């Protein structure tokens, strides 16, 4: 059997001394699209940040392996170079750094020896930007500086297309998008998903209308309380989260 891209075993995560993830396990293989649904504060974004290596999050127990390697051995940039990509919920502005330069440098850093020549990269950029409906003038703007919410998300997806990740983690990529942008962004994600694994974090079902997840997980209070196929997303959409209380707490039945 092929080694999973990502395998998480019973991790617990602290932020500022508070336990936010309380025992979570999952495996993602190539070609799979996993959706994690849950309310705000359930620990979904924490999971995304932990996987990418944000220094504020501490894994207190359990283990994560990425492409068979223990994740804690890899610095943030090594994770990126090994093929992990995180599409941020709140991408940071880097004033004075042009999008074009940033994309070129990032592609060179992440794809290393396999990076395309400048000319090839320009072609790739052109194609990806057309697919995402991004104007050329984008390249001369400063990274996320003064960008609208939709523009920021398009830039995240543009980066994802160019960085050709093995594992793409998308943190609330759908929040704040109008329906057209959502559809475009979903097309981008689908094109990456063919050759990699995807972990899509969302609290709405609507992105999943376009994405066709292979697995849907529901996360409540730092743990996955239910896993199923695409039908689970629809069920959550219809019934909400209250019927899915974690073990040991009093749930309000529908």
């Amino acid at each position, binding site marked *: 059997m092929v080694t999973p891209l990502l395998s998480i075993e019973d991790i617990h995560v602290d932020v500022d001394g508070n336990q936010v993830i309380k025992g979570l396990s999952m495996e993602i293989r190539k070609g799979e699209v996993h959706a994690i649904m849950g309310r705000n504060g359930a620990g979904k974004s924490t999971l995304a940040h932990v996987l990418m290596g944000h220094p504020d999050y501490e894994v207190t127990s359990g283990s994560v392996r990425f492409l068979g390697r223990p994740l804690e051995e890899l610095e943030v940039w090594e994770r990126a170079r090994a093929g992990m990509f995180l599409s941020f919920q709140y991408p940071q502005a*880097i004033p004075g750094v042009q999008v074009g330069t940033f994309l070129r440098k990032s592609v060179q850093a992440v794809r290393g020896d396999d990076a395309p020549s400048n000319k090839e990269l320009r072609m790739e950029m052109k194609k990806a930007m057309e697919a995402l409906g991004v104007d050329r003038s984008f390249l001369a703007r*400063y990274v996320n500086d003064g960008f609208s919410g939709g523009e920021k998300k398009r830039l995240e997806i543009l980066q994802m297309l160019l960085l050709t990740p093995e594992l793409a983690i998308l943190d609330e990529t759908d929040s704040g998008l109008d329906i057209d942008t959502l559809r475009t962004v979903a097309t981008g994600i689908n094109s990456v998903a063919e050759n990699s694994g995807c972990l899509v974090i969302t609290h709405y079902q609507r992105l999943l209308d376009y994405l066709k997840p292979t697995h849907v997980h529901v996360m409540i209070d730092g743990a996955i309380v239910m896993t199923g196929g695409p039908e689970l997303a629809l069920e959550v959409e219809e019934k909400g989260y209250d019927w899915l209380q974690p073990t040991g707490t009093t749930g309000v039945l529908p």
Partner: protein
Amino acid sequence: MKEQARDAVGDYRFGFHDPENATIRFDSGLSEEVVRNISAIKEEPQWMTDIRVKALHHFFERPMPEWGNSEMLDGIDFESICYFLKSSAGTETSWDEVPDDIKRTFDRLGIPDAEQKWLGGVTAQYESEAVYHSIRDDLEEQGVIFLDMDSGLKEHEDIVKQYFGSVVPYSDNKFSALNTAVWSGGSFLVIPEGVHVEMPVQAYFRINAKNMGQFERTLIIAKAGSSIHYVEGCTAPSYSTESLHSAVVELIAEEGSHIRYSTVQNWSSNVYNLVTKRGVAHKNASIEWVDGNIGSKLTMKYPAVILKGEGAHAEVISVAYAGEGQHQDAGSKVHHLAPRTTSRILSKSISKNGGRSSYRGMVQVSPKAHGCKVSVVCDALLLDEDSRSDTYPTMEVANNSCGVEHEASVSKVSGDQLFYLMSRGHTEEEAMGMIVNGFFEPFTKELPMEYAVELNRLLEMEMEGSIG
């Protein structure tokens, strides 16, 4: 302390030095005899000798400034400095004639290469005097005068006599007095009426000897309707003893002319850099100072513009980078003396590893100056907790028909910015370098491309080994 100083200059790329092969080297120390000897060697007219001597006495009498960084200023040992050092027989017009060791230095600094590619003229000063000088034939044919200052005085005494000290008198401050007393080298540039010099003209200043004082004097006169872009660069070897660079630059922009003066100062961190730069802009003329301070131990420099004629414009864009043991005290002064004059000051500073950067600026609007516009923006970026940034802005506006804007900000590099860039495959140092380059972008984009690339590279090197 000395160990620290050496560590601080450890990464400095231009820190190499060549053997000193001086043809004339004065004993260190300053006296009337030293000043008279400099003037005699240069065979100067009596009036210049007289100004030098007057300036020297003013220097002796004038107390050290009590602002800026008094502690560092008081550390200057004027008696240990060599005030005149001549390394070559004369100023050559072909690199082949320049002594080999000196030529090698400028080769390593990339000057002859840059000259061929993108410059309209070059003067290269090594220690006290220019060793190389050239100007493109087409500029010479249009009547552009570009000489080192010593030759300028010899060949155009009447012009020099008229303008020397007219913008920065020796009595302006202690260091302008010192410069006037012992000046040597620098550029003399006159652009005739209506001539637009398309390619930048460059001066490069190199200190090689230990305990050296470099006191170049530059005078640029842009006649009516002309334009020029003058670029200067500066480096020195890293020694554990200190050198002093104290220049005076005077610009005269006649009606409708345009002078842009760009500097990237990258002195090693044993150099005191105390420079007076000032220009006068007449009717509808424009003076731009583009001023980058990366190196030195202490820099105190406030490029100034006197907006004397109606509709004149001043632009001062400066960046300062203060690393370990460095203090960059920089800023600008603009005096609005005439109606409808405009000025824009943009100052950006970065402090790292306990470095200190200060913005010190003054904008004055006189009662007669109706309808002026003033904009001052200063931004500081701190890369760690040990570093420091201060702003000392002064605004004296005596005319209430003016539009005055002032913004100041101090920010820190956020962990989330670094994390974002690292998640795109960049190491922490690379991420920091990108943020720093981005912060300086409004400055870099004003530089000629080659300089901008070089500056970005320098800053990236400054970031190496900077992350704890």
